[in-house]
């Protein structure tokens, strides 16, 4: 039997070259989705194969890797991906945001501000921001070519007409360097402002859809909006129950079946760091009560 033998960071060198070339083009054309011949990875499509391929192509022995899913280092898929690289590349791993040189993420941007010696690698399920407005690749490619983004504005405007707000809470579209409309991956719109003018390089990998794109450091990233309906990041009314943070993104924890809830930081490293530094929250929150609609 052909006993499998795998390369450093799993991918063969030819594949890494192909991905590396795509990454360079992606950086040179901010927000443009570079097609690449995504490989079949030893984990399912949709579970981070794009991010894993990008990470595998850039990772070296000197790197320190952090992997988060939903902001947490301890979710099972984050653990699984971190173990994959610890095993195939032997790299050091960390949960501390400021110690990491490469951070692979699904659905969050860390709360701790990133610095210039870091690369943030996003796992992307559907890279095409126009896909749900126009399913055809041939059409969306033409729209990007002509920078014809009217359809997106119409969609956002229809939201306003119907709900009074732009009804997009995550994967909120942005415009990169005043040219390409880009999908930031399904991060909550709370995280959108962190992409703007970031000192860190941001790389996006979509394995199943076979696209790589990038935001270079210090690049203008604007969330799409209207003058009379400006972009507003989602705000929580309560601070984190564990660390008292007032400006972090929170997970809602349902604590019983009688309506009790508490809110805690989704970024576990940030929350633990604050608690270690002596910050404390209420440890429990008052039950959340949805205001009953007053129907007469």
């Amino acid at each position, binding site marked *: 039997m052909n006993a499998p033998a795998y390369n450093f960071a799993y991918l063969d060198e030819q594949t890494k*070259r192909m991905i590396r070339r795509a990454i*360079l083009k992606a950086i040179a054309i901010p927000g443009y989705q570079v097609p690449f011949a995504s490989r079949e990875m030893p984990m399912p499509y949709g579970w981070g194969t794009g991010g894993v391929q990008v990470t595998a192509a850039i*990772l070296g022995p000197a790197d320190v890797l952090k992997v988060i899913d939903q902001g947490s280092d301890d979710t099972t898929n984050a653990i699984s991906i971190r173990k994959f690289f610890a095993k195939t590349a032997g790299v050091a791993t960390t949960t501390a945001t400021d110690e990491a040189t490469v951070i692979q993420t699904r659905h969050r941007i860390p709360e701790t501000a990133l610095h210039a010696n870091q690369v943030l690698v996003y796992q992307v399920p559907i890279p095409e921001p126009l896909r749900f407005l126009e399913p055809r690749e041939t059409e969306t490619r033409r729209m990007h070519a002509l920078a014809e983004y009217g359809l997106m504005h119409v969609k956002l405007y229809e939201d306003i007409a119907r709900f009074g707000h732009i009804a997009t809470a995550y994967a909120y579209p942005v415009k990169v360097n005043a040219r390409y409309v880009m999908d930031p991956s399904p991060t909550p719109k709370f995280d959108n402002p962190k992409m703007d003018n970031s000192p860190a390089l941001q790389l996006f990998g979509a394995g199943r859809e076979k696209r790589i794109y990038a935001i270079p450091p210090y690049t*203008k990233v604007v969330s799409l909006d209207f003058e009379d309906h400006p972009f507003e990041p989602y705000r929580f009314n309560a601070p984190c129950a564990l660390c008292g943070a007032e400006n972090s993104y929170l997970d809602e924890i349902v604590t019983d079946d009688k309506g009790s809830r508490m809110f805690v930081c989704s970024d576990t490293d940030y929350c633990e760091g604050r608690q270690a530094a002596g910050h404390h929250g209420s440890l429990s929150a008052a039950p959340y009560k949805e205001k009953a609609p007053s129907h007469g």
Partner: protein
Amino acid sequence: MTTIAELPPGFADKVLSAQSTFRSVMDAMARPGSVQRIVPMAGTAGPMMRGTAAIALTLFDHDTPLWLDAGMSESADVLKWLKFHTGAPVVQDSSIAAFALIGDGAALPSLERFALGTNEYPDRSTTLIVQVDSLDAGRSFELRGPGINGVATLQASIKPLDLFERLRMNEALFPRGIDVVLVADDAVVAIPRTTRVVNKGS
């Protein structure tokens, strides 16, 4: 005649040297104007600088048509070295090249003769690798654009002297355009198509 056994070697450690070289090039591309060093060394051939050779070993293969300027293509050693170590097909038609190696910038052809990509596929463009005299001394340039926190300055001795004026076409062409990697020995500076360069004199 050089035989294959006499060819200057490639990387001692193919995997880790390519990774390290790539990170230098990636950092250069992500932070235009910053001077990055290429650490791992391979052999070189003919007029190829050490940095150029390392980039070739890192990014070229069967899938990357390669265009060479006269100085490079006249060197049988360069041709043999590239074929043996990278397998990249050398093409005469610069408009289908994925990469172009420019040993002597003074003879750089018109940029329109390289692939500029299309509006649908702006990535299908030629990346120029231009060897220059110095990336730490010479005229001063100011750079602006993505990857740069405000303004970056670069001191360099570059041929052709009007390279950055010629690259100004990138502004009108965008998203089409030409990305340039400047190499001086082991130093690398990238000028992607989004970078605007102003000559500040010497």
